């Protein structure tokens, strides 16, 4: 797999084109807006309550590169059915791996499609792209009532 193909895995390009969870909804439990100052891209992300005190899929809007869009899309799927503190644990893990400069890999069991982001961790300049929605999720969690 060439460098470029490890970064832009098919799964990532698919998520970037078909953005799961795109579109904000009324009455979120919490919301966060994040801007990536190096590029000017933005995401607005909402947490909505689902059944059993767990979260519904994340709703979001924003614009950015395919990495950030795909990351938001995968995150939307992943959040569904987690408790806020489980989601926070996932954010922490995601950050650890994505900042590892290629020394760590995502666990496919835990991260599903988002495991395709393993290749991003070698591209220091793109780590912020992948992190963008996760930072927003973290802030939104801290704002939950």
């Amino acid at each position: 797999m060439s460098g470029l193909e490890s970064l832009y895995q098919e799964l990532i390009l698919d998520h970037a084109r078909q953005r799961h969870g795109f579109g904000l909804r009324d009455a979120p439990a919490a919301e966060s807006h994040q801007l990536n100052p190096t590029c000017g891209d933005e995401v607005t992300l909402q947490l909505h309550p689902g059944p059993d005190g767990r979260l519904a899929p994340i709703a979001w809007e924003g614009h950015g590169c395919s990495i950030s869009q795909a990351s938001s899309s995968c995150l939307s799927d992943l959040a569904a059915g987690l408790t806020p503190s489980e989601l926070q644990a996932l954010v922490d893990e995601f950050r650890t791996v994505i900042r590892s400069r290629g020394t760590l890999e995502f666990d496919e069991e835990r991260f599903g499609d988002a495991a395709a982001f393993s290749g991003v961790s070698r591209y220091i300049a793109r780590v912020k792209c992948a992190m963008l929605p996760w930072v927003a999720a973290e802030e939104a969690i801290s704002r939950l009532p």
Partner: protein
Amino acid sequence: MTSTPSIAPAVPLDQAEIAALRERFPILAREMNGHPLVYLDSGATSQRPIEVIDAEHDYATHQNAAVHRGAHLLAAEATELFEDTRATVAAFIGADERELVWTSGATAALNLIAGAIGNASAGLGGAAAERFRLGPGDEIVVTELEHHANLIPWQQLAARTGATLRHLPVDDHGVLRLDAVDDIIGERTRIIAFAHVSNVTGAIAPVSELVALAERVGALTVLDACQSVPHLPVDVASLGVDFLVFSGHKMLGPNGIGALWGRRRLLDALPPFLTGGSMITTVTIDGAEFLPAPQRFEAGTQPVSQAIALASAVRFLQAVGMDRVHATEAAYGQRLAAGLAVIPGVTLIGPPPGTPRAGLASFDLAGVHAHDVGQFFDDRGIAVRVGHHCAQPLHRRLGLTASTRASSYLYTTEAEIDAFLEATTLVGPFFGVSR
């Protein structure tokens, strides 16, 4: 349209000459991601020839001393070298050396002008500085395509003084709309600040028209020459502006140095901006009197080794000939514009093919974010710039957050331009953008 003095068409460098020049730039021999480096990011920062790198090295190794204050020989030698660099760089833009002020870069130079005018507006600088005073009702005019460095300092000046900031708009291609000029520039206009060459569109500003308008209404003109001094013959006398700024690192020189040129009678009337050592005559605990320009604006220890390296860069450029540098890059600009314009999905920003532009071009590729475009190029060893290029208002006007820019210099080859154009045709397919 260009206000540069070279009218006779110069001969572009031929590819063999360029190949010989490239030998002087060690970094151009690097490999990136398994490909030879194709460096098309000179608009952000240029590479340095070995002469320039060695000039700084030699100074640090053999001659380093504090200038201007030394009784010892080492300091006297350093002072002389330093003052010679001022003469060299001033001559390069057709200026008197007493009119050239060293700064840490173009951004610092623009802040110096705006900040000194702010000081004058706050009552500093006495009667001589009265002419610079701004207040409510006064207007500062910029253009919609300015680099943030030539925009935010004026926003801050307006906020401090109560003056109003206005702007000359651009059209849907990012080209300055001169039809709007009469509504914007008028009796209230006190300052007109604009880029000689846009770092995004590559367009060359109608300097003489804007200078004529400024003269009619008695406004000061400030020219951001960051993208012109490195690439075109620039002669301050024929440009007719009042102030001009540029940066060393964009013209084969080092980081950490730039210059402000200003008319002497204006510089001598302007209060200082940065204050401290080496810019004073008499200091008491309560107040200070300042030296005339340029020293008045050069507080503290100066970038001596950088000035020496910059002078070496200037000699390198002079040896090649700025008219030939310009002719070479103008041809590259056309090749880039023409090549981009025919690629499916590409929207070229700035002047259409066939109209004058500098040796750079920016574009948008429908459906692919500029950072993804840049990553694709990087994988092939092609270094381009992506983002808003410090020109958010222009991008917003064009409905973009980011674009991709290729910018050339005297060491760029035709083959590199073509490699870039070929890669551009492959980006859409890679990202599955159907067309």
